[in-house]
C-alpha cells in the first residue's frame, strides 16, 4: 500500500524497502518525542497514532 501510494510501485520488492524508509522517517519525526507517532502494527503495517 505504501509502495503504491508513494512511488506507484506495483510489485513486491524482495527487500525490506518499506521498513528502511519507515525507520528513516522515525528518526526524523519520532526520535526525540514520546509517544511515538508512527506505530508498527505487527503483521499488517504501520499506522500514525497521535494518542499512542
Amino acid at each position, binding site marked *: 500500500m505504501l509502495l503504491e501510494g508513494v*512511488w506507484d*510501485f*506495483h*510489485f*513486491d*520488492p*524482495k*527487500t525490506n524497502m518499506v521498513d*528502511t*524508509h519507515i525507520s528513516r522517517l522515525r528518526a526524523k519525526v519520532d526520535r526525540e518525542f514520546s509517544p511515538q507517532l508512527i506505530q508498527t502494527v505487527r503483521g499488517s503495517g504501520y499506522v500514525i497514532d497521535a494518542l499512542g
Partner: protein
Amino acid sequence: MLSANLFPTASFRLVALYLTLFIASIGVLAALLVFQLRAAMEGEAQTEITNEMNLLLFEYHEDGLEELLEETEERIEKNNIQQRLIYMVQNPAGRVIFDPVAPVSRPFGWRRNIGGGDIHFLFTELDNGYVLGIGKELSALADFERAIGKALIWTVGAALLIGLAGGTILSRRTLARVEAINRTAQAIGVGRLSQRIELQHTGDEFDDLSQTLNRMFDRIEHLVANVRQVSTGIAHDLRTPLARLRHRLENLRDQQPLDAQDAINGSLAELDRILETFAALLRLSELEAGTLRSGFQAVDMVALVQQMVEAYQPLGEDLGTRFQTGHLDAATIPGDSHLLQQLIANLFENALQHAGRDRIVEVIIRRDPDRVLLLIADNGPGIPERERARMLKPFQRLDPSQSPDGSGLGLALAAAIAQLHGAELRLSDNHPGLRCELDFTTQSDSR
C-alpha cells in the same frame, strides 16, 4: 516416392499447361501463315490470268479466232514449264482443245478446283459459241502447306519431348526441395527439435519459405526448452520448501502449544516463498506471451530512473551500497511503466544482494538517434562470462548451493520485461563488476 508422384506435382502441371499453350500458339501461327499465303498467291494467280485473258481477247478481237488459236499454241510451246498457265478453247460442240480440261457450260467466269487440283480458271465466252479458258495451278501453295504441316508435327513432337523432360527435371527439383522441408518438419514433429531446413542460398521462394520455417522452428525449440526448464525448475525449487513445510507440520503435531507459534510462522514464511515463486512464474509466462504490449504508453525514462534511485537509496545506504545516477539523456520510450519499474528494481536488488558492501551502482541513460540505452553498472564481483547467458534463464543461480532466498527468477523476469519492450538485456563486464545493458530500439518497431 519421387518418380511415382511426379505427374500430379504443381510444377509438372504448370509445364504441361505452358506446353499446351505453346503448341496452340504455334498452330495458330501456322494457320495464319497458310491463310495469308493462300490469299496472296490466289490474288497473284488471278491477276496473271486476267492479264493473259485480256491479251488473248485483244488478239481475238483484232484478228479473229484463227489468230487466237495460233497465239495460244505459241504461248503453250514457249512456256513449256511446270508453272505455266493452262489454256483451253472449247468449240460450240463442247470439244476441248489444247490442255486437257473437262468441258464447261454456263455460267462462265471464275472457277476453281477444276478436275480435283488446286486450279483457278477464268472462262470467257467468245462469239459464236466458243469458250476461252485460262487457268493456273497453285501447286506451290500445296507444297508449302505440306511443308508447314510436316514442320508443325515435328515442332509439336519436339516441344512435347522437351516439355516432358523439362517438366520432369523441374518437378524433381521442386519435389526435392519440398521433400527436404517435409523431412525436416517431420523430424521436428517427432521431437528432434534442433533440425533445420538446409538453405540453397539461391534467394528463391523456397529459401524464403525455409527461412521463415526455420525461424518458427527456432521459436518452437526455444519455447519448448523454456517450458522444460521451468518445469524442472519448479520441481526442484518447490520440493525443498514443501519438504521443510511438511517436516515443520510434523513437528508441530508433536509439540507444545508455545513452540507451535514459531512453527506456524516458519510454515507461513515457507508458504509465502512458494506463492512468491508461483507469482513470479505466472508473471514470466504472461510477459513471454507478449499480450501486455497492448497497454504501452510513453514512459519518461529519466523520471523513472530518478524515482527508482530515490526509492532504493536509503536501503542501499543501510546495506553499504550507493545508488547514483550518471549522465541521463532525456528519453521517452513506449512501454509499461510498472513493468519497467520492476525491471530496474530487479536489477537493483540483484546488485544489493550480490555486490556486497561499499559498492556503487550507477545508472546511465544514453539517447542515440535510433535507440535508448539504459546502463546499470556496479563494481561488485560481477558474473563470470560463461555464466551470463545462463543467469538470464529461470531458476538459475550463480551458485546453486547458496542464496536460498530469492526465487532465481529475478534476472529472467528482467530479461522477459526487456524483451516485451523490444529490448535486449545484455550482461557484460564492468571491470570490475556487472554491467547490465538495456538496448531499446526506438525506430522501426519490427515486432
